């Protein structure tokens, strides 16, 4: 007994820390675990058993997996060569290409589909007006193209990090030992990039499976799991059918996610070593350089027309017929969607702030390793990354429209859904940031009398401003551009811009939709620019090197 009570006293420790721990555990259980459990437990077991009889769902499952294979394959291949090309320091226009591949990350996910309808659809600027063709972009081929363009930037981002981390000395050494240019690529670059390629494939595959915005705009009559959930609710009011469908969807996404966590991310770290002194990379031989440049130009064209298309759509009087310049669409867009845009910004800022604060607090308490079940919190904090937006949307719809937690009809249901969907980004950034801060700095503060939470305030909060800001910006952009969650949770009194854009496209108001999309894009780009300026100012005392 004496031993037990002593151990209890020791382990409970600081009351502030205990309160923080309870708070983090509480919100994660209510806002991550509870809605997830609610979705899975909502349909009766017989409904799950009846899945094989539902031909449409089986088709949706098959189609979703097919699109995952197709789009992941092309997006990864394109992403790899684009990353390889832009990792060559002597590629002409390298900086521009790098910037271009980052742009889609700040755009609403459905923007590619929208722009491609404008460009390649039946009234497409390129297909009809320029080439005089009659092309139907709706269907799986269109979706394949759109998803490839929409998701290859993720692959570029991950693979670039790995390629940049490969010490150029290795290339020099291989050449010194007699390897030809193709041999260097085959025996050095490709094997070292392999973990990055694997990680990129898994991330893209999860994104493709969960893709709602592009699918809803361009897939047409091609059933997919992500859109099927929405049609169930929107068209049929079939909540439990939607729950079954999104539950089917999370089986492959969680499998991919687990694979990524336990298998790839570990290898990824071992690949990023040996930075040391940088020597310039050897010059890229002409046989490689010009084809790579040509490839980048083609890809850049496909990215470029996304922006050109939407921008042109916002100013052309009647798309496909009357190309005269007009501001009419802006008037309509701001009259109908101006409030929704402001609403988006409010919801986005609120959820991004909550995400960053909760993520930082969660990272702090899980790093204590004090109570023994931090691993469970850690799991709950990264779990939403494996959950598609439509799953979260259905989850919040089911969980928070009935007692004990009634949030339906308030903006809070939207804010909280977005907040907890984005927790993993903030959490992982904060955990990585904390690992860079020597533990003894915290001990020094504790030694001088700082209590548990005081350490957070005095040491971690100021030192983690960088990751905090990054987490805020990422969450904000993802929140204001989100469609997959908001379609389930908006109510007529709480509309947001992405939902309005979807309605405008559906109603044939392409010009207004393009104008509102442009305005939304402006919001995200201004946010990113401001954040870059803030970081560029050199936040005082951020740990360097």
């Amino acid at each position, binding site marked *: 007994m004496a031993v037990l009570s002593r151990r209890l*006293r*020791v382990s409970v420790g600081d009351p502030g820390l205990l309160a923080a721990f309870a708070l983090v555990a509480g919100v994660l259980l209510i806002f991550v675990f509870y809605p997830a459990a609610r979705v899975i437990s909502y349909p009766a077991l017989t409904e799950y058993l009846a899945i094989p009889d539902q031909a449409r769902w089986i088709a949706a499952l098959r189609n979703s997996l097919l699109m995952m294979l197709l789009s992941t394959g092309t997006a990864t291949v394109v992403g790899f060569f684009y990353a390889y090309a832009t990792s060559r320091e002597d590629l002409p226009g390298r900086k521009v290409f790098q910037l271009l591949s980052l742009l889609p990350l700040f755009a609403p996910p459905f923007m590619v589909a929208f722009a491609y309808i404008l460009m390649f659809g039946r009234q497409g600027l390129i297909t009809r007006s320029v080439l005089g063709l009659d092309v139907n972009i709706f269907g799986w081929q269109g979706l394949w193209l759109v998803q490839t363009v929409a998701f290859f930037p993720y692959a570029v981002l991950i693979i670039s990090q790995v390629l940049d981390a490969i010490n150029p000395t290795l290339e020099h050494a291989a050449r010194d030992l007699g390897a030809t240019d193709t041999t260097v690529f085959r025996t050095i670059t490709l094997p070292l990039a392999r973990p990055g390629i694997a990680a990129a494939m898994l991330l893209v595959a999860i994104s493709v499976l969960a893709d709602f915005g592009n699918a809803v705009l361009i897939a047409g009559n091609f059933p997919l799991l992500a859109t099927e959930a929405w049609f169930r609710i929107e068209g049929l009011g079939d909540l439990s059918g939607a729950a079954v469908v999104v539950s089917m969807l999370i089986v492959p996404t969680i499998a991919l996610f687990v694979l990524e966590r336990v298998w790839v991310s570990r290898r990824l770290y071992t690949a990023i070593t040996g930075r040391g002194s940088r020597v310039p990379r050897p010059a890229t031989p002409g046989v490689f350089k010009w084809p790579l440049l040509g490839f980048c130009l083609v890809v850049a064209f496909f990215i470029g027309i996304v922006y050109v298309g939407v921008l042109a759509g916002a100013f052309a009087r009647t798309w496909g017929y009357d190309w005269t310049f007009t501001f009419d669409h802006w008037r309509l867009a701001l009259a109908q969607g101006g409030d929704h845009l402001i609403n988006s910004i409010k919801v986005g800022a609120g959820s991004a702030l909550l995400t960053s604060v909760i993520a930082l607090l969660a990272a702090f308490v899980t790093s204590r390793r004090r109570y023994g079940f931090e691993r469970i919190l850690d799991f709950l904090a990264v779990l939403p990354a494996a959950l598609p937006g439509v799953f979260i949307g259905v989850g919040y719809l089911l969980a928070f429209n009935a007692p004990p937690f009634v949030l339906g009809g308030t903006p809070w249901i939207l804010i909280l859904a977005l907040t907890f969907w984005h927790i993993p980004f903030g959490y992982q950034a904060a955990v990585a940031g904390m690992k860079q801060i020597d533990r003894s700095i915290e001990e020094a503060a504790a*030694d*001088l*009398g700082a209590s548990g939470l005081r350490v957070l305030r005095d040491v971690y909060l*100021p030192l983690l401003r960088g990751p905090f800001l990054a987490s805020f910006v990422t969450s904000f952009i993802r929140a204001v551009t989100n469609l997959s969650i908001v379609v389930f949770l908006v109510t007529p009194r709480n509309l947001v811009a992405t939902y309005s854009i979807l309605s405008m496209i559906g109603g044939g108001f392409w010009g207004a939709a393009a104008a509102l999309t442009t305005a939304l894009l402006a919001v995200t780009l201004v946010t990113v620019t401001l954040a870059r300026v803030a970081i560029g100012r050199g936040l005082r005392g*951020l740990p360097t090197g």
Partner: protein
Amino acid sequence: MADVRLVNITKRFGPMLAVDDVSLDVSDGSFTTLLGPSGCGKTTTLRIVAGFFQPDAGDVFIGRDRVNDLPPHRRRTAMVFQEYALFPHMTVFENVSYGLRMRAVPAAETRRRGSDVMELVGLPGVGEKFPSRLSGGQQQRVALARALVVEPEVLLLDEPLSNLDAKLRVRVRTEIRLLQQRLGITAVYVTHDQEEALAISDRVAVMNHGRIQQVGAPLEIYHRPQNRFVADFVGLANFIEAEGMGDGTVRAGGRILGIHGRAVGPVTLVLRPESVQMRRQLSAGANAVPGRVAAMSFLGTLARYWVDVDGTQWIVDVPSPGDDVLSGDVFLEIPPERIHVLPEGGRQQAG
């Protein structure tokens, strides 16, 4: 002021026994060093005193109080960390006064005590700078000031000099020692550098494998090590297996050597390199053995020779060698009072 007492402290990390039944008295106002190779448990022991680790068994006393259950800042100790652990986002003064702010000391007093302690460590006028702008030696002093400002009764230092270059290390260690004597506070210091330990300590506790091998004044540790580990870790030593004859002599490799005191049975002789005198000719003194110079290395203040003696190699230091270089056959003379005799089984205490 306070003394520190560790009573039968044990600490495990998983299967590893980091500290194994350590007891140690650190008297009030003394400077005690925990010395040992990395992984010997010295830092763990210090952290148990500081309160960062809970011992699995045993008690920690500071002054009259058992402090096992007190958090670090309630222990009247303050720690100087190996990497300094200065808060990079605070100015030097904010760093130094942090402990006072935590104790809600009024602003005016904080300013006064802060600048006093900055003066004390010889760093006036850098308060508004950020730590990253200071040199390594200055950062070290800031860390020292930050610990001293809360007026601890026990100052704990965890290899505080390991990030400084060799010359600065010597200077700063002297400053730390003078400061400790001036303030009269108790200090527990951790290092793996035996020279540093000998130079600044009142007492040295040599540790290995989580156990204390020997506690004593520097002279005692150096000249009368209790076992082979201590003799080997502190300074250089020649070890010679011998047989005690019980009459003030030992037999080593067929030769009889005189020693101080008596020894019976198998023993190990510890000979410091500088205790052996090397001559070209046999002189009148006893305890001489013939040898042959195998190698020499000139180190400025001394010349170090490797001399083959009866199939073993001895290290012999010749102080102040000048231009004189010995080679070939030599005689090694060993004053009996400089031979330290370890009884066989003078092995270290292992866990």
